[in-house]
């Protein structure tokens, strides 16, 4: 019964995807062209990496609103690093981005943990603070594709065995995070913390350490996404990733990660990312005003948490009926 509730969410997304894709494709066959599919996959890859990090944080009953700014900071750092050191291998760029993000995430985690401050406030603050740092540093300058080494740009477009590098990285992130959350003690403890913080404390789980770790992961992945962003678009300015946090939260929530913590999977979050990206490109193909995208993101968040709530109420009512021995 519970299994079906969660499965229902994921199959619901898949169904929505199929309907959307079929409808769009019948309206305009360009939608299923190789280029279009590539674009969708590349876009999904970046969003999915961010959504995985967000899912990890949300499972612990926290939230990380700063991911868009961390992405921007990492993209700009890596961009300027590569501009000034043309020979730098891609892997170093990836690690640098990861590092920048991890530092930002660590700061978030430490503030949440030791300040005993709600994650919402901390990450709302750092959302603007990190963004401010980029502006302070970059000002109006822009890093253009022609300033970046060719190897890095081709990393953003090339494939290995038919699979674009970006997609490969996203899949690796998904699989690793999925396995850790499902099959390792650390992952299970994150669910426990989100499910009942008091019980987690009593069970001897190191709640503080795990909270910091969750933010570290989210920050690190946002940093990684920043490198992917730089490689894909080649043009980076101080506004890179502005407002992304909304898409990321939407992807996770739509994918069934509970805002109350304790449940949800990274697979769902990945599917949510795919759905959002497909909607975006369907709008373009269907010649609908692009500005609908953000409104749809907002509506989907409301729809998803509203649906979660209704399902929870129904399940609870059913359980109460069954258990009532009066």
């Amino acid at each position, binding site marked *: 019964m519970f299994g079906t509730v969660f499965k229902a969410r994921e199959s619901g997304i898949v169904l929505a995807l199929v309907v959307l894709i079929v409808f769009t494709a019948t309206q305009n066959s360009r939608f299923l062209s190789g280029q279009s599919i590539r674009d969708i996959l590349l876009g999904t890859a970046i969003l999915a990496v961010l959504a995985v990090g967000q899912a990890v944080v949300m499972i612990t009953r926290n939230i990380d609103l700063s991911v868009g700014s961390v992405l921007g900071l990492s993209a700009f750092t890596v961009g300027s690093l590569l501009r000034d050191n043309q020979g730098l291998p891609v892997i170093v760029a990836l690690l640098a981005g990861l590092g920048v993000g991890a530092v930002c995430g660590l700061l978030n985690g430490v503030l949440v943990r030791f300040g005993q401050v709600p994650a919402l406030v901390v990450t709302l603050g750092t959302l603007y603070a990190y963004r*401010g740092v980029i502006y302070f540093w970059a000002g109006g300058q822009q890093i253009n594709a022609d300033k970046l080494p060719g190897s890095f740009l081709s990393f953003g477009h090339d494939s290995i065995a038919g699979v674009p590098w970006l997609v490969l990285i996203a899949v690796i992130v998904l699989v690793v995070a999925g396995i850790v959350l499902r099959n390792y003690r650390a992952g299970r403890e994150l669910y426990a913390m989100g499910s009942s913080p008091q019980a987690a404390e009593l069970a001897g789980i190191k709640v503080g350490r795990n909270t910091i770790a969750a933010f570290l992961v989210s920050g690190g992945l946002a940093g990684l996404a920043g490198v992917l962003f730089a490689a894909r678009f080649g043009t980076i300015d101080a506004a890179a990733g502005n407002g992304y946090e909304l898409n990321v939260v939407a992807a996770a929530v739509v994918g069934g990660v509970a805002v109350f913590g304790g449940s949800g999977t990274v697979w769902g979050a990945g599917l949510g990312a795919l759905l959002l990206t497909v909607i975006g490109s369907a709008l373009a193909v269907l010649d609908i005003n692009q500005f609908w995208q*953000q409104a749809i993101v907002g*509506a989907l968040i409301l729809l998803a948490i509203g649906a979660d709530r209704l399902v929870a109420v129904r399940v609870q009512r059913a359980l109460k009926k069954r258990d009532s021995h009066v």
Partner: protein
Amino acid sequence: MSDKGIRPAWLSRLASWDAAVIVITVLVLVIASGTVENFGTSRNFTFLLLDLLPIALVALPMTFVIVTGEIDLSVASTLGLTSAVMGDLWDKGMTIESIMPLCVVLGAVLGALNGFFVTVLKLPSLAVTIGTLALYRGLAFVVLGDNAVADFPRDYTTWVTGTIGGGPIPNLLIPLMILAVIFGVVLHATPIGRAVFAAGASDQAARFAGIRVGRLKFWLYVVSGAVAGLAGVLWTLRYSSARADNGFGLELAVVAAVLLGGVSIFGGKGTLPGVLAGVVLLGTLQNALRLQDVSNEALNIVTGVLLIISVLLPNIVTRTRARFRRRATV
């Protein structure tokens, strides 16, 4: 703290955090007038107040919302959407006199939607208002796209940017002060205010005392939306420009000012005078830095850090105090 005689609780509260905010504000004012060029001019004073106005306005209902333990992150998007609708309707030829009340009503409706999700569906206000933050801003762009509508009647735009008798005090300050007094009295000296504090400090105990917590919160969201709508109208007239991205990011400044003013993010604590002090401090800092040619976006470092400090500091103070007390008893 304990042996201050028979001073009322609100006064001793004021004497701690709020007083510190006021002292710091004065310090910033003094230092800025001494070191920042043009800061002390009456022209700059007018600008400072005009920049403060939307933050102060939206902070009034936000104080209520946060004291009840909830939050409304959608205010800036509500402002943007009402601004966009205002531009669109003006473009379509409606009179400004009918547009303005319509925009306030629109804000109230947007607030009611938040209130519905939070109180009827009982969803966390954080998630709901993040959703509507995206939704309302998105709709603003749907309405107006990248366009700007600029040709609003001169009578209104000059009044909104004008000053009393040509002096340094903006015309708008007077209605704002009146609103602030109304909000302050309601919060601190009416049954509604008592209910707001009780609901924020303990939802359950408030319900057991016969307070209809859900209904109360719902109406607070409606007021929050309506005031954000009003702010959208004023913003549009002040810059004589209706744009979908008007007020982008304002929610940060508002929340930061409210928390800086000593309102607890956990609900149940805070004063309206404190919030106004928080608004002035934030606005003064921003103004001084802007005069130093710090960009708007970089300014957000200051706002963001202030936001974090203002929630961090009270917690640290309480815990340190508790630790000392524990040590003293051992």
